């Protein structure tokens, strides 16, 4: 399942995440909402926070697994 794969990729990229969630928004397995709270985001502009998430999901983004992605990032500070 794509949801588990995405979650696994994000856990690898953010092992210290306080909160990490992947929601299949439509149930179709290709529209996702990901939420990540990690100390790595502290002090980073939003665009760089999202770049880190996009980088972690580079493979499913490029191979068509993810048709639509919504990202919510939070620091811990």
């Amino acid at each position: 399942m794509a949801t588990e794969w995405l979650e696994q990729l994000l856990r690898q990229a953010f092992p210290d995440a306080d909160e990490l969630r992947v929601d299949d928004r439509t149930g179709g397995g290709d529209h996702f909402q990901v939420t990540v709270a990690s100390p790595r985001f502290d002090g980073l502009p939003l665009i760089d926070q999202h770049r880190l998430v996009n980088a972690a999901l580079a493979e499913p983004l490029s191979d068509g697994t993810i048709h639509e992605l919504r990202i919510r990032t939070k620091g811990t500070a």
Partner: protein
Amino acid sequence: MSDLQDRIKDVIEKEPVTLFMKGTPQFVMCGNSDRALRALREAGAPVTAVDVLPDPSIRQELQELSGWPTIPQVFVGGELIGGADITQELAETGELEKKLEEKLGTDYKSKAEEKTISVV
């Protein structure tokens, strides 16, 4: 750099606010593109829209240029702001208006207009 990438770069650098989207402001083809457009409208921004759907290479060349993997993409004064989520979040906190003022001048709302241009 390809001719197409040159044209994309030219648009990003010359237009005050560029929105790469699926569809056009009159006929939006994707929920995220719609969210980004609404956030820009709420902030009173001028919007130059580029539809990426007519040719898949637009998306490829844009991604190569910006390093951003998804559509929509919003540029203000030549700088990548982000996709739908960031644009919406910045609009809600008022930071988008601040960014627009900083890049385009405090009277940017008086020049706000929407247009669509083609790069292919």
